[in-house]
């Protein structure tokens, strides 16, 4: 268990076998307490999320702040215990094995944080930062640790490693800091990587470099990746499937290009319409933005959680009944009543609003 295992290239291309990570009806609810005890309700940050992730597959989870994407991520990392539902890693519930099991599981998961400077301890040198995870999994030999550190640093293009080993985080540029964070995530040869907005704090030119690096690492190691972001314009460069979250629910899932070209849920359409590509014509028109703000997760609206902001909302349906998941196009799922066969007319209005 403590030894480092190389990811096996066998089974790399076969995606039909058992999923690496399987999330079943996951609910992450935070308790609200009145006067410090007495239960006053729950913040339903993640409500009934189900998906499978296979070895070698990259998915993006997209949503605004407060939509529950970070809570979902924390549950997947084993940092919060779900209220209900299961997270299965290679078929095993990650919380079933107790502390030991969780510890092993975490050695199989790499985590790339959003803010590289905040994620790196300021008083540790790069060498120390990268050494610690290895000490924790029990690599006793100093030289072996150093060899592995050098290998990973070359891989994230911090080369020559000697130039960086003794530096402290504040001596590195933002891009280099993020490379150290990636190196730390990769040092134990994980099978799964969770990247939380890995490029949002970086400059445009560095952003591309880091995205390309992540993609390269993912392909070389056949990693499963969960890429969490609010920026739909970068997902195309990184993931095969996109999940869109709104108010604790996954409201749309589809392969990347399919989602970008044929968004089905009104919220996804609004998100896509709000993103600008550099064009001088943007300055001459206003963008259409749904009114209001995301709902409270303590008392979410009944029915579809987006209905108070949705201009296609159907009275008596969207505000009463929670929409099931429809599959309007192959492999493309949307939780929206517009795709019920009774509402073809309303659906036409949405189709007419796609500007491309």
């Amino acid at each position, binding site marked *: 268990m403590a030894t480092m295992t190389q990811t096996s290239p066998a089974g790399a291309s076969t995606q039909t076998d058992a999923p690496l990570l399987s999330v079943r009806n996951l609910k992450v609810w935070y308790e609200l307490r009145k006067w410090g005890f007495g239960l006053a309700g729950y913040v339903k940050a993640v409500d009934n999320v189900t998906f499978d992730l296979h070895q070698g597959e990259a998915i993006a989870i997209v949503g*605004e*702040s407060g939509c529950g994407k970070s809570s979902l991520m924390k549950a997947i990392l084993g940092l919060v215990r779900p209220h209900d539902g299961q997270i299965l890693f290679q078929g095993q519930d990650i919380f079933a094995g107790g502390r030991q099991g969780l510890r092993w599981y975490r050695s199989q998961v790499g985590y790339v944080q959003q803010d590289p400077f905040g994620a790196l301890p300021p008083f540790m040198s790069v060498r120390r930062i990268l050494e610690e995870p290895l000490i924790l999994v029990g690599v006793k030999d100093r030289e072996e640790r150093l060899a592995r550190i050098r290998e990973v640093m070359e891989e994230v293009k911090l080369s020559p490693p000697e130039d960086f080993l003794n530096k402290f985080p504040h001596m590195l*540029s*933002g891009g280099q800091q993020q490379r150290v964070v990636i190196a730390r995530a990769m040092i134990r040869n994980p099978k799964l990587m969770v990247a939380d907005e890995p490029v949002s704090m970086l*400059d*445009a*030119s*560095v*952003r*591309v*470099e880091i*995205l*390309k690096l992540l993609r390269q690492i993912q392909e070389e190691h056949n990693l499963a990746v969960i890429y969490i972001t*609010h*920026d*739909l*314009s*970068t997902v*195309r*460069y990184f993931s095969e499937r996109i999940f869109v979250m709104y108010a604790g629910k996954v409201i749309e899932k589809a392969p990347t290009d399919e989602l*970008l*070209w044929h968004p089905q849920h009104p919220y996804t359409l*609004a*998100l*896509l319409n*709000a*993103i*600008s*590509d*550099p*064009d*001088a014509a*943007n*300055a001459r028109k*206003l*963008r259409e*933005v*749904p009114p209001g*703000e995301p709902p409270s997760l303590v008392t979410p609206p009944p029915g579809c959680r987006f209905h108070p902001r949705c201009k296609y909302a159907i009275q008596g349906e969207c505000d009463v009944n929670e929409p099931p998941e429809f599959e309007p196009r192959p492999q493309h799922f949307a939780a929206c009543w517009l795709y019920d066969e009774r509402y073809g007319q309303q659906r036409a209005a949405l189709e007419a609003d796609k500007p*491309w």
Partner: protein
Amino acid sequence: MNGQTSSSPQFVLKTEDLVLYFRTTKGVVQAVDHVDFELPEGRAVVVIGESGCGKSSFAKAVLRLLPRNVAVYSGRVYLDGEDIMALDDEEFRLRIRWAKMSLVPQAAMNALNPVLRVSDQVAEPLLIHDSTFSKAEALDRVREMFRYVGVPESFLHRYPFELSGGMRQRVAIAMALITQPRLIILDEPTSALDVLTQANIMNVLKKIKWETGTSYMLITHDVATSSELADEVAVMYAGQMVENADADVFFKEPLHPYARMLMAAVPKLRGDEDLEFIPGQPPSLLNPPTGCRFAARCPFRFEKCDEDPPMFLVDGRKVKCWLFEKDAQGVYGGAAARAENPA
């Protein structure tokens, strides 16, 4: 909106040879290095560049919001034709800052005072700069501004922590607007916000511009979002202005090699083109290289680049690059360098 000054107010803002250097323990940082810049009335310019290129320092130099470790601060800044560098600090504070030129600071959502109600904070500049306003009148104006930027009136007497990030950003914009300034400087106004909120704020800024004719200077590293507001684009690199052009032509075809590479690094929502990044890092501003500061990373580099290029005028656009020097026959320089690297 405001009274015009005597000299020709063709340009709201004009800087000549503006220099701002900082003293640090390692030496002098040349954050703003001889910047010449003009902003016509009622226009919005975006200043884009990587972090550390001096774009925020440029805003500080214009607003004279200087830290203590200034080594050199020189040049000319004209606001509506008036040389505001000649004013002493007190006069600058009374007549210029926030009266004629206001700022929406970086991470404005955290720039509000947490222990004051938002209405009091937004009214404050007005009460200080215009003694004819009573508290009640000022509050009426605050109400008007809140309607303008889309903050519900019921939020008037709340504290900043009771508002969401987008709402706080709007409050900061209301505070910049309240004195009806000639120029608003926005330093990364939307970079910490969600896409929908970002689009909302941009809508608000556009409406204000169309309705009041206020001029904007938007400082950002987010090229895609900057196009939402830009009439003109100014690109900064390593403390210098390297290109200044109309947005229509710039977003179609930037001229300076750095600007081109920066645009090629902007992710597009759809389409198939591969993203490219700019290899290497910007030079240290402690000891910047002589000659063109981008030369070390530039694929078009040729002999001439060892000398510092002046601003060349190309079809009304300004480019600080030797590739755009014309010889006596009107042929652009660096033809050989271009041929080797067709862009």
